């Protein structure tokens, strides 16, 4: 069995002096679609920001591919990130969004970058959107473009923050299929934050569930296992879409 791609040990995250999540340890295997799930405000996106390296943990360690903690130190990225809003640069066209970092870090001529960008856009089903501005795209298309941008450097690891949030069911299903296809076809490891039940069941292979009150992980396993047989009431409520009893 190969070593995990991401190894998290005793991680505590938060801001100022407030601890949001503490004592978390988990591994993400290569080729996995690892889902971080939980209710609103439980710290899913905060945990993701720490895994990406945007925030510094209060304590504990994160190791990605044996290279230590994630660092955003002004070099070509080792992994791709798709933010919840897509976070496309509004002053650039879709093509420029996908290609500008590629051009900056590889020194490839513009023609070569354009060819790569067009291929990436075709991969996510956005052929013909190269010259469009982000404002001209629908929510689902923006997220696809953001995935194309995240894929620009051929990463082996992709972080996705709420990929299907705010999308209509058809767009959400298409995005789920895209994520599953990237995982299957390219062997991409995906770490995904979501609370969309259908997405979790459709594309997730392993998941951890976070809880606000417990300030940590309350369940781990495959989505099917958690749905079928979790002894934890909050997990059952989540997978069976039950309201909290007040």
């Amino acid at each position, binding site marked *: 069995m190969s070593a995990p791609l991401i190894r998290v040990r005793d991680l505590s995250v938060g801001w100022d002096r407030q601890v949001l999540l503490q004592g978390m340890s988990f591994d993400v295997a290569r080729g996995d679609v690892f889902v971080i799930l939980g209710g609103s405000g439980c710290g899913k996106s905060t945990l993701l920001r720490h895994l990406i390296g945007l925030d510094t943990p209060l304590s504990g360690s994160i190791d990605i591919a044996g290279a230590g903690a994630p660092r955003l130190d002004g*070099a070509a990225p080792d992994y791709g990130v798709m933010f919840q809003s897509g976070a496309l640069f*509004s002053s650039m066209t879709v093509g420029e969004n996908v290609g500008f*970092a590629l051009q900056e870090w590889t020194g490839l001529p513009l023609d070569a970058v354009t060819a790569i960008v067009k291929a990436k856009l075709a991969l996510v089903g956005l052929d013909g959107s190269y010259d469009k501005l982000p404002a001209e795209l629908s929510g689902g298309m923006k997220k696809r473009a*953001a995935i194309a*941008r995240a894929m620009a450097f051929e990463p082996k690891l992709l972080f996705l923050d709420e990929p299907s949030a705010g999308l209509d069911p058809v767009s959400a299903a298409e995005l789920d299929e895209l994520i599953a296809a990237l995982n299957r076809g390219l062997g991409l490891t995906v770490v995904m934050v979501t609370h969309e039940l259908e997405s979790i069941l459709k594309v997730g292979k392993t998941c951890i569930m976070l809880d606000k009150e417990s300030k940590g992980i309350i369940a781990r396993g495959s989505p099917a296992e958690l749905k079928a047989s979790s002894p934890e009431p909050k997990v059952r409520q989540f997978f069976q879409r039950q309201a909290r009893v007040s």
Partner: protein
Amino acid sequence: MIVTATPGTAVPELIEERLSRATGFVRAASVVVDEAAGALVVTLRGQFTIDEAPALWNRIGDVLDRGSRRAVRVELGEVETIDGACTALLVHLRNELATRGIRCELSGGAPAVRRIVELYAGRRTPRARRKRKPQNAVEQVGESTLKIFAEIVAMLDFLGQIVAAAGSSLLHPRRMNVRDVALTMERGGADAAPIVMLINFLIGFVMAYQSALQLEQFGAGIYVADLVGVSMTRELAPLMTAIILCGRTGAAFAAELGTMKVSEEVDALRTLGFQPLHYLVLPRIAGLMLVAPLLTLVADCVGIAGGLLVGHVTLDITPRAFWVELLGAVKPWDIWSGVLKSAVFAGAVGLIACQQGLATSGGAEGVGRRTTAAVVAILFMLILLDAVFTVVFGALGL
């Protein structure tokens, strides 16, 4: 229309109520407040819609003002219909009384009325909540002072990071986004030139006009050239240009970076390997610092042209005489000191605007707040820096 009654008195029946009762249509709402067995009984009758809410709110105020009662019972048995707004007011009454330790019960009511009362949490036992103690004046002043100190620390921290980033950019020029330097020079410089020229022309014009009226009395009209020349080059052109840069470019920087921050574009940039300081901030500051001296030189010229126009029209000073007098009065250092000032002013504009933009949080409201804060802070800093320059140049005899 709501009819109210004081305790123990009969409810006067309105003609509309009698009419509606006779015709089987709408029954006017009424609220009767009475006492029974030590409790205050508030009896509601008729149909309560949003139209009755203001009058119901007044009656609730009356009940709350009485305050010392042991219990309050709101009788809903004769309510025909009640909407969410009126129910919310009754629930508010119950919760307010609960915080004072007074039990309040919303009792009775037809099934339809009970359903809406339950929907608005009418059956839940309200928890007594602790009222937040308002801050007194000393606490507010203290908190505001701490915030100002925190802002100053954040600004100095940012300045330190910028200096370090500038140093590393000199060592590794590839890290710097040179394209944005040119873009900033175009947007902040070339595009701003018309307004800079207009404002400085008017400043020179007004200053010359005001001084001409005084100098003419002493037969010293020719000194308008000295006054306008020295004032524009040393003081007014760099300051006015910086103020225009603040309102135009500084506000744009803060809003642009603020919007990028709240829409996660800055984070996205970092995940693509770009450092926001190198990629977004340094090019803007550098672009402004390069273009502001050029704008100031243009401002010097048009400001002096404004003075020349006034001198020629009102004092009959020939352009040649004005020019000769100007050359005698304005020394090269007057011009260079203005240029130096303008570069420092532009640096302050860029630094504060970018710092405030990158400190933005909280969506559109946060962008507006930080943009306003940036403009105010820049204006304050410009005046402060100008005073420092004046004192330092004076002390050095420059």
